[in-house]
């Protein structure tokens, strides 16, 4: 996580941007995005017919594009978007364009200070990371991933051409994994969700070896067992051990390097996630049909819900929070096995305070957005709100929201929750 100690943690509210003052001459402005520290608000604006600009804190800059899409902030606060000029697409980082233009760009990924994006050039597919494009491009590429070093990228790539409806050719395996553009020599029917180890030296992914046999491949080598189905693998931090949910006889278990670690008793088991120290393995699981919950080291929480999503761990990896959907389309947040009181129309992904004592999130009810800390509303209601952030000492919370045309950031005391 990036250093937050240099953010402005002085208590109080500050209006950063009033869009009413900058939208003159703008046909329409897309949704605002705000930087993690809340100091910058940016949006894509249609400035004239088929003319777009990027507005940062009210300033439109000089450059205009035929189109600008998919804006996002990196954790470091860089504003990234995809823009097109003269029928070519460019990556814009803080309104500076990377030199090379492409047939199309999509799927911006940010990690470890870097930016990566999927590219199509002359109907060939690959990736561009920090301005460098793969030397090899492929007939197709998808399932892109970006390593924690901010440099390494991987994707599922089609390494052999296939004609229309050539089903047997497809079944012979024409997909592989390209790591930094170089393909594995092994080929598979399908490849899903490649993921890097923390040192970015290894890649694991789900592979489908025939229409019926799924397993995990690590650096091209498959596990010695096939399964009826598998889900996304994870590396155990600091090791080359790979864990993944596997389906055996209609039930899910967790396997490590091809050996079953958690007995296959789960109706569903996905989104495995390790604590940073590798001690705890968490996942979303279902103890029965329609009974989802959070699982820590093969033990479920005692409460179940029809739907559970967005599993987030505390910094020490001992606690977790997840969004639960109850019947009647109502949402709540479940922290360490107990649900917050109160039903909401929507709950957004939670964050833990560094000391793990507080959990904050955005919650929406009847169109009004509130920041909740440990289940209680914190500060005013907004028309739109952004994920809150806790100060390094966990004593304050940064609240970011839009009311009317005003975007403001507020630092509030978080000790009373």
């Amino acid at each position, binding site marked *: 996580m990036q250093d937050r100690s240099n953010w402005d943690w002085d208590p109080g509210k500050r209006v950063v941007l009033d869009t009413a003052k900058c939208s003159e001459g703008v046909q329409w402005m897309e949704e605002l995005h705000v930087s993690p520290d809340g100091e910058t608000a940016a949006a894509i604006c249609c400035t004239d017919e088929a003319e777009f600009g990027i507005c940062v804190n009210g300033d439109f800059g000089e450059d205009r594009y035929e189109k600008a899409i998919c804006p996002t902030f990196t954790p470091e606060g860089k504003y990234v978007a995809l823009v097109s000029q003269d029928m070519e697409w460019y990556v814009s980082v803080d309104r500076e364009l990377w030199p090379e233009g492409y047939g199309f760009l999509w799927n911006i990924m940010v990690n470890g200070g870097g930016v990566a994006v999927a590219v199509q050039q002359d109907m060939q597919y690959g990736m561009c990371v920090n301005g460098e494009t793969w030397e090899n491009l492929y007939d197709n590429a998808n399932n892109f991933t970006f390593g924690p070093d901010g440099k390494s990228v991987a994707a599922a790539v089609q390494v052999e051409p296939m004609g229309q409806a050539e089903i047997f050719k497809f079944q012979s395996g024409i997909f592989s994994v390209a790591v930094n553009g170089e393909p594995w020599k092994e080929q598979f029917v399908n490849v899903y969700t490649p993921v890097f180890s923390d040192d970015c030296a290894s890649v694991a992914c789900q592979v489908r070896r025939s229409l019926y046999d799924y397993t995990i491949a690590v650096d091209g080598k498959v596990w010695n067992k096939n399964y009826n189905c598998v889900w996304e693998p994870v590396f155990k931090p600091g090791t080359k051990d790979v864990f993944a949910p596997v389906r055996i006889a*209609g039930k899910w278990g967790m396997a490590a390097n091809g050996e079953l670690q958690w007995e296959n008793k789960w109706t569903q088991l996905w989104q495995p996630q390790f604590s940073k120290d590798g001690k705890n393995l968490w996942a979303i699981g279902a103890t*029965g*049909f*329609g009974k989802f919950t959070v699982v820590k080291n093969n033990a479920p929480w005692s409460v179940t819900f029809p739907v559970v999503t967005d599993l987030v761990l505390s910094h020490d990896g001992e606690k977790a929070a997840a969004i639960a959907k109850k019947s009647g389309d109502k949402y709540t947040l479940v922290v360490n096995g107990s649900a917050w009181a109160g039903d909401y129309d929507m709950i957004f992904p939670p964050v833990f305070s560094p000391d793990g004592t507080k959990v904050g999130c955005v919650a929406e009810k009847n169109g009004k957005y509130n920041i909740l800390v440990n289940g209680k509303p914190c500060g005013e209601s907004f028309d739109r709100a952004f994920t809150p952030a806790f100060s390094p000492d966990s004593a304050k919370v940064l609240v970011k929201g839009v009311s009317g045309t005003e975007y403001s950031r507020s630092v509030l005391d978080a000790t009373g929750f």
Partner: protein
Amino acid sequence: MHDIYNFVVGPLAWFGWGVFILGAIYKLVYAYNKFITKDATSAHYMSWKFGLRSIGAWLIPFFTTGWKNNPLVTAVTFVFHICLILVPIFLSAHAILWQQFFGIEFFWTLPDNVADIMTLLVIAACVFFAVRRLAYPRVKFITEAKDWWVLLLVVSPFITGYLAYHQIFNYQFMIVLHVITGLAWLALIPFSRLSHMLFALFTRAYIGSEFGGVRKVKDW
């Protein structure tokens, strides 16, 4: 002959009933276990409300699409099943056996002449089903040996019972044959097409639950 009679209404009858009851329990428990394990994603949706609604709808003659489109089959099916269930239970001669072997006292039994007519109706219905199997292409195409056996199995106790009651041919012989075929009928319920007697309510309730609860339409 008397010894044989005593044997068939004694040990053989207990055997027949035993097979029926144990077989039925086995079949139902087996199916239930399979249902909640292998078909868990179906079992979840079982609903009393929609299950009973579906059963109710199909118990009314000419009410459902299936019944409406096959009026003759519907009429025969209802008459057949009503007679098939009532006669063996409420026949006055059987009431004696209920009393003798199970200690169950009936307050009412079918008048013999009514039972006689109902027996003939069962036989007539079976003839109808047989003719249908032979003459109607859509039924002929799907008819297997099993379907003939089951028809024979069902009609036999009624034919033999009728002949015995009217003392046509040798009474002793007929009555023994009647008991044997009747017991065979009973014992084979769990192990033949007749198992729909055990399962029909459940298959109906299940599909009623799916249609009522998930698909939000009538299943009739």
